[in-house]
């Protein structure tokens, strides 16, 4: 047992640059999809408040479909399926596109929930004052809805971090992939995976702390 730990920590030290590199890739992906997922989520949400019934229906379908479909299937579709039609992309691009589509659907759903809880008279008042639909959305709806959704949105960021580990299944060499390689060199699977779990836990805790700070700030303002 003690020998096992020593072997593990020796190999970990040896491969540390690779592992750290993987961690950076993980954080890269997490940050990228958190931002793109939020932006696309806002767009989808905007379309779902649109006057056109057709557009509303389509966005509803979008949200429902991507919430109902496993992320991993979406990634496999893009990574293993699309090449058949001549579309080949790097693992990172695939992960980025797949996650963005998926995360945006969730974020749009959170924003919609917050929107449904909003005071309708406030929006009517803004319209009555002569603001256009776009202006009402930009100056009234969006700021409020975003503020109300902060806890859900930060939970989504935590989810993004954890789910990014899925990307190794499409050969993206992020943190968990590097940990696999590490485990494969000394067969200390238990220790390697436990180490991975602790690292994820630590980053999640960090995000939680930051989120608390953001929530507090927003509480003081609003």
């Amino acid at each position, binding site marked *: 047992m003690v020998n096992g730990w020593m072997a593990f920590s020796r190999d970990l030290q040896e491969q540390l640059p690779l592992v750290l590199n993987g961690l950076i890739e993980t954080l890269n992906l997490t940050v990228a999809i958190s931002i793109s997922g939020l932006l696309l989520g806002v767009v989808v949400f905007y379309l779902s408040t649109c006057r056109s019934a057709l557009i509303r229906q389509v966005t509803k379908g979008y949200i429902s479909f991507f919430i109902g*479909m*496993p992320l991993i*299937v979406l990634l*496999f579709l893009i990574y*293993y399926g699309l090449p058949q039609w001549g579309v080949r992309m790097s693992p990172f691009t695939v992960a980025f596109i797949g996650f963005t589509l998926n995360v945006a659907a969730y974020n749009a759903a959170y924003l919609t929930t917050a929107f449904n809880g909003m005071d309708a008279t406030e929006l009517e008042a803004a319209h009555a004052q002569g603001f256009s639909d776009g202006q009402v959305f930009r100056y009234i709806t969006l700021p409020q809805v975003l503020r109300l959704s902060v806890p859900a949105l930060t939970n989504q960021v935590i989810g993004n971090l954890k789910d990014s580990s899925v990307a190794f299944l499409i050969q993206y060499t992020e943190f968990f992939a590097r940990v696999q390689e590490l485990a494969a060199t000394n067969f*200390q699977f*238990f220790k390697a*995976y436990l180490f991975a*779990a602790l690292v*994820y836990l630590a980053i999640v805790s960090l995000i939680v702390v930051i989120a608390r700070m953001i929530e507090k700030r927003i509480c003081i303002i609003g």
Partner: protein
Amino acid sequence: MDMLGILQHLAGGVVYTVLVTLVCSLTGLAVGLSVATIRRLSGAPLRTVCDVYTYLLRGVPVLVLLFIVYFGLPGIGLKVPPLLAMALSLGLISSAYLAEIFRGALDSVDPVEVLAAQAMGMTRFQIFWHIEMPQMLRFSLPGMVNEFTSVLKYSPFAYTVGIPEITKEAITLTATTLQGAEIYLVVGILYFSIYRILLVGVRALERYFRVPGIASL
């Protein structure tokens, strides 16, 4: 191969997908209920244990815990069969999320009703069983549905431990036919259909148990 042929090939996996989803959901429900109950009925030390449990399990990726259980535990002498490994990873993680949902729901039970039950002469456990839990379950219904759909969507990980569910079948089929695009489209549609059927079932359940004046949270 046309879509229908693909569908026929994948159909066998549906059973396993549903099985994995059910086993993990029920594990999550049983453990999550227990954790919420223990947390509600016991003193500070056990309550902290419950909080640590939910915090830890909500901080670890499903895939990582699955690998710990399935590929890691044998290294220290514990061989875990695939389905049990799913229950001990995906199931337990969902138990942590469910326990949190239940905790929030318990906070919405009116303390005066608990006091009234106490004044009636009920034991603490009777109060929990007859007053708090029935209300808690109704309050948490939407959260529970979300959690069960989430379990369904993580169920493809079962392929990594060799369970022949939809995704596993799709991988095999893709290797032989090279029709990945159609196959994964069908897979997506299959999951989506299972999800919708699950929703219909839950809605029916919800209607059956609905009580006027208790809105779901």
